[in-house]
């Protein structure tokens, strides 16, 4: 690692508008790359760098004989992995937010590798159109990939968890040919950028994409058929980039102008021509005329400034306010450094050195700016004097106390320390903060320093602890030059995962424990690695013992993951041993299924009562059986295969119930089969009856209904056993079949409709209504309708026809042997609106015990 001079001058501050930008060296690189011939793809938050020969350049120099392998380096230039690339040319590449390298081929296939160059997930495609036509442009963003086909269709894969392609709408002009007509850029679209999601906001399911058409910029998202906003550009766009907070879009146009838009409605924020930068050009670089060549890169440095790089000339910094400053490429960065934007700055990787350009954080500026009179700067100065044994230290400190700005000074020093990258200066700033903190109590207004939010002992400790982690990460062996601001954007858990993927298990575990995060995932990853690394060197039992010695005692280790890995490594016995350590059903069951232990999985699933697991297990078993049935050479074997399923179902009634409810929706035929074979023919009968009723409701043909009814009856008959009496049900199904026949006959003989589907009493009522007294009596007799109910039905029919005379005649014949009482007559008469005199006549005849109450 090459540092410039020690002390304050090791960073080079440059003012841009109202802000300072500092440049500091991160690492010296020993990767010996000629960046003019190499394309570099870098990850965010101090992420890795992937390099591949730039074929366009390489063909010119050494021909296409060399294979374009993809090398992966840490930010410190140590090689992490290698991808032997044997496919077509690489159209685009980039790193996802989970540090996964996505490589896009021209045919639209996206390959996925981890930081060690191992394939991390199966490749996916940007869709059929992309495969057929090929892509002309593609872009990897942290959540996915977007690509433009040669005929101008824009396809996006918005998430990587379950990649699926969606087409984004482009305005009609997108397919108009550009000015150069022909060639790969024949279409209107020149450049693409995806708006990042600002930190802390939920990641949308569909990101917004900015597309530079010929002289127009449009903003599209998947939620509507037309672009959300558009804006003209001064000329064809050469470079297009969105700021990392998703608020701005910057472009360099071929006419030499630089323009920045606010992303929301594409309003112009800044517009700048190269000629406007002449004064800075002569002052900073000593050049009189701006370069004629086009810049080779444009990138955002944080969210408030962008940087353009001209090969052999230097860098141009442009602020959001329109301020612009030139500066030369830093030493070791070579003529054409690779730019990687970060939320708080920009990394420049050259052939020999890696630099970080960033906006000086406000706290650092207030403390460290030359001649600053801010409280933080005074406190820092006081501590320096104190260490030099100078009495003026006390005077300065008391000055701060008197002005009441000591808390602000302490806070500023703490914040400056947190943002600092140099360990020596971190320490100096922390010392200054602690020096001030010790005197917080002097101020009578602040009785208890520990109570001041942000200044307590824990806060200082927290900063120190985080800085220790950051410094460990900055070590060239690890090579993750992440800053505190980037870490806050990323979070500790993803960081631990990154370390695990780089096999820094010990560091990952220390970080996880220091931050109070569960370390089990780290241990599990280590164990998997161990299993792979051992190969056949250790026996199953020995390896298990080795793993247990490290993992025992740590609760929540995901044994199932390790077991699954062992199974994948061809060690099913070890997998079974490991799986015994696992007690979580939702982990065990899928793996048992994978290992082919379907019955064991079913048992575990049933004890867990998790319907989902039961369904998984049952479906897997059913699929097994289907496969066995299809391939069984003899009928005996296929019977045995079926028997296996029926036995399992009988043994696991809960799982069986879940499976049946699922099958009732998906394969109704399976349901009756299962019931018949698990000794529940009466349930099969119900299914047939249900099917018959459903068919009747649909208005299906009578034969189909009768067939189902017959099946139902047969099943009920079969169900009759010593312990189960289903004679009644069978008889009733027969009665129903007969009823339907009779209803049809009746409809035919009376040429009236509306009988079919009625209940027995409904039919009788209908008969009464149509005056078919004999038919009514026949139905009542045949279906054993009780005499009382039959009489009530007749009474109701008479009342409905307002046959009051007949009614009164019947009432007068009532005696104490009659089944019906006067109340029945009164209610029927009342319900059908009998005239008051009839009602009164009936009510007057009520006599005997409690007559008054009954009359009421």
């Amino acid at each position, binding site marked *: 690692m090459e540092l410039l001079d020690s002390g304050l001058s090791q960073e080079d501050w440059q003012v841009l508008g109202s802000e300072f930008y500092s440049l500091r060296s991160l690492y010296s690189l020993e990767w010996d790359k000629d960046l003019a011939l190499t394309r570099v793809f870098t990850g965010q938050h101090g992420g890795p760098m992937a390099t591949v020969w730039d074929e366009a350049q390489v063909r010119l120099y050494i021909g296409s004989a060399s294979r374009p392998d993809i090398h992966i380096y840490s930010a410190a230039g140590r090689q992490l992995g290698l991808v032997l690339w044997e496919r077509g040319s690489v159209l685009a590449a980039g790193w996802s937010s989970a540090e996964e390298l996505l490589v896009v081929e021209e045919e639209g296939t996206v390959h996925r590798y981890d930081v060690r160059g191992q394939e991390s997930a199966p490749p996916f495609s940007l869709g059929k159109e992309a495969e057929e036509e090929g892509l002309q442009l593609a872009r990897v963003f942290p959540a996915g990939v977007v690509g433009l086909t040669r005929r101008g269709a824009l396809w996006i894969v918005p998430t990587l968890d379950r990649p*699926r392609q969606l*087409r984004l709408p482009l305005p009609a002009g997108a397919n108009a040919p550009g000015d150069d007509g022909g060639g790969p850029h024949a279409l209107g679209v020149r450049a693409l950028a995806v708006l990042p999601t600002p930190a802390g906001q*939920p*990641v*949308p*399911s*569909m990101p*917004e994409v900015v597309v530079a058409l010929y002289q127009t910029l449009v903003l599209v*998202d*998947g*939620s*509507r*058929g037309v672009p959300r906003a558009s804006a003209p550009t001064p000329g064809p766009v050469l470079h297009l980039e969105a700021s990392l907070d998703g608020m701005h879009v910057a472009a360099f146009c071929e006419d030499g102008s630089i323009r920045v838009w606010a992303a929301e409605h594409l309003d112009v924020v800044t517009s700048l021509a190269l000629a406007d930068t002449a004064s800075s050009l002569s002052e900073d670089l000593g050049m009189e005329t701006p370069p004629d060549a086009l810049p080779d890169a444009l990138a955002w440095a944080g969210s408030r400034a962008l940087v353009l790089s001209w090969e052999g000339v230097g860098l141009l910094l442009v602020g959001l306010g329109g301020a612009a400053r030139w500066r030369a490429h830093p030493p070791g960065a070579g003529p054409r450094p690779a730019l990687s934007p970060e939320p708080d700055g920009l990394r420049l990787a050259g052939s020999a050195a890696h630099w970080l350009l960033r906006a000086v954080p406000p706290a650092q500026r207030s403390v460290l700016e030359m001649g600053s009179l801010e409280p933080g700067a005074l406190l820092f100065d006081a501590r320096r004097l104190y260490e030099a044994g100078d009495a003026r230290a006390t005077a300065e400190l008391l000055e701060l106390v008197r002005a009441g700005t000591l808390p602000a000074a302490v806070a500023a020093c703490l914040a400056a320390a947190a943002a600092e990258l140099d360990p020596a200066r971190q320490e100096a700033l922390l010392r200054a903060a602690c020096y001030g903190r010790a005197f917080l109590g002097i101020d009578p207004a602040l009785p208890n320093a520990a109570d001041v939010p942000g200044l307590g002992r824990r806060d200082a400790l927290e900063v120190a602890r985080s800085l220790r982690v950051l410094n460990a990460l900055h070590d060239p062996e690890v090579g993750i030059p992440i800053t505190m601001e980037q870490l806050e954007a990323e979070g500790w858990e993803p960081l631990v995962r990154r370390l695990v993927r780089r096999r820094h298990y010990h560091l990952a575990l220390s970080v996880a424990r220091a931050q109070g995060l*569960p370390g089990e995932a780290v241990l599990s990853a280590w164990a998997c690695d161990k299993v792979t690394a051992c190969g056949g060197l250790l026996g199953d039992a020995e390896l298990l013992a080795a793993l247990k010695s490290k993992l025992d005692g740590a*609760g*929540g280790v995901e044994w199932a993951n390790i077991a699954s890995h062992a199974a994948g490594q061809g060690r099913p016995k070890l997998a079974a041993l490991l799986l015994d350590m696992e007690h*979580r059903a939702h982990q065990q069951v899928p793996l048992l299924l994978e290992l082919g232990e379907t019955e064991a999985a079913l048992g575990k699933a049933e004890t*867990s*009562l*998790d*319907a*989902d697991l039961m*369904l*998984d297990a049952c*479906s897997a078993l059913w699929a097994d059986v289907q496969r066995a049935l299809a391939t069984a050479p003899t009928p005996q074997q296929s019977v045995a295969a079926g028997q296996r399923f029926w036995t399992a179902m009988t043994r696991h*009634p*809960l799982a069986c*119930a*879940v499976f*049946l*409810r*699922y099958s009732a*929706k*998906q394969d109704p035929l399976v349901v009756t089969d299962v019931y018949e074979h698990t000794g529940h023919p*009466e349930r099969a009968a*119900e299914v047939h*009856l249900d099917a018959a*009723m459903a068919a009747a409701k649909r208005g299906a043909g009578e034969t189909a209904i009768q067939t189902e009814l017959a099946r139902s009856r047969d099943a009920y008959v079969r169900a009759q056993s010593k312990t189960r009496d289903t004679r*009644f*049900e069978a008889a*009733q*199904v027969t*009665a*129903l079949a007969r*009823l339907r026949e009779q209803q049809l006959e009746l409809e035919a003989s009376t040429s009236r409709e509306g009988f079919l589907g*009625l*209940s*027995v*009493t*409904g039919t009788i009522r209908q008969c009464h209504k149509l005056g078919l007294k004999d038919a009514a009596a026949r139905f009542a007799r045949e*279906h*054993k*309708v*009780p005499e*009382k*109910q039959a009489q*009530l039905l007749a009474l*109701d029919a008479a009342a409905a026809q307002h046959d009051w005379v007949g009614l009164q005649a019947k009432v007068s014949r009532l005696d104490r042997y009659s089944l019906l009482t006067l109340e*029945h007559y009164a*209610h029927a008469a009342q319900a059908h609106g009998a005239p008051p005199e009839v009602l009164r006549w009936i009510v007057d005849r009520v006599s005997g015990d409690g007559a008054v109450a009954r009359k009421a």
Partner: protein
Amino acid sequence: MTSAAGKALPSLDKGPLSLRELRDGDRLALLDLLDTIRGRKALVLEADFAAPLSLLVEASTLREHGVELFGVLGDGSALASQLEDREIRQVVYLLHTRLESVHAAVAHVAQCRRLCSSPLEFAWLVMPRVVSLAPRMLERAGLLADVTLLPTPLSWIPLDEDLISLELPDVFREWTADGDPSSLHELASALSSLQQRFGAVARIKAKGTAAVEVAGLLGRMRREQGSEGPAVGQSGIDGMILMDRSVDIVSPACTQLTYEGLLEETMGIRCGQVVLESEGGRKVHGLNSSDAVFVETRDKFYMDARRWINETLRTIQQFRDQGIHSADISALRGFVSELRDKFVRIPLHTSLIEQLAASLASPGFAARQKVEAGLLDGGDELPAILDLMYTGEGAAAVLRLLCLYCAVHGGIPRKAYDGLRRDFLNTYGHEHLLTLAALQRAAFGLLAQEEGAGADATPDIHFTYAGYAPLSVRVVQAALSGSGWGGVEAALGALPGPTAELAQGRRVPCDFLVATTGVVSGRSLVQEFMPPGG
């Protein structure tokens, strides 16, 4: 969605636990998820989830988050044409991981895709988590690539200050008649998440087969969480009593005679809301403890409630006529605040009481009441029930009385059994053979045939209590009386189902919060078993 005017949400501040926090957290989570789907969208709900959702978030808030169209699962043709007309491309489904919902949603997606010419984007917000059921069914329908699945961690719907519900329909039937335990796991997960929020429960008691299973699952889940599990909280829940519905079939089978109970019987209260038909269309009114009048009247006998309202009106009137001139400022202030609390709600309750009176006057109601009262006195009311059937009472009401009969007498006499069933089928249609079979299978003797001849000799535990008080309340009382079941183990033994106890820490006396999978009333109890639309 029906108009939300006149609807009051429970304040959720006064209960034993801070349910407001629960509701606000869930609302925020839901809205955040909706925001991840950009642009204008249509929201499709399960048919019976509209009311619970309205307790969580109002339709106007959903509109602010881009929901322009509402639909329910079922026939999607109307929604599809609206989608076309208004050029909405995002269709969002909010559904539970239940078989029926997922099945209906798959069909709905397929229908929308078929009917809409422009390409649609589908997203499923799956409550409470995405399990393999949804992807499996989507895959079978060939739609897996078209639908984004998002886990939506919603489970409990706070219905009132002290009542939260999962609002899962048909749970009772699924478990008792179909033997499907999915809802038990669902309930245990939800209770586990409740413990994550409010701290672990010190002591869990369970009564009934399902309750014992759930208690076991809770213990298992706690073990699986290991050190990540919640600690036994000081301010959280101290004890939990799990009880099966089947422990106490009698209570829901009886007609409740309180004001709230009768409203439920005649109009149906769902999620603390009652829907009134008026000339302006349907109107939803909230009925919960934020309603000062309802708080006073809900547990009163119906006639008392009526008298209370009349008296309140009279007091107000008297005060206005005479007191107002002589009252001092503080009395006036009291009067005004009383007016604000009560007076605005009184017109609603007067109209509710009028409607109640009309339906109570029907002859059927009196007859059913008589049978119920007779049954609770241990009488043999079978002939009376038959009579109700013959005179055209509805199938659900008759079944409900039969269930009560079985609960009281331990079954239907063998000699009457076949005749009764035949009459039932003849009267209401043979498709009810399925209803009867399901009720028969449902555990613990809904419509079971009486076993043996000596059934009458078994001690009739339901009537160890003079006058009927809901049995479930008695069980809770017993469970609260220290460790064990407070000396009523013998009586509990006569109730169906085993008991269990799970101690996770110490126990102190506490307030009650009722958590349920769904509010069961006499109507819904039987309806679950009947064929849809029957």
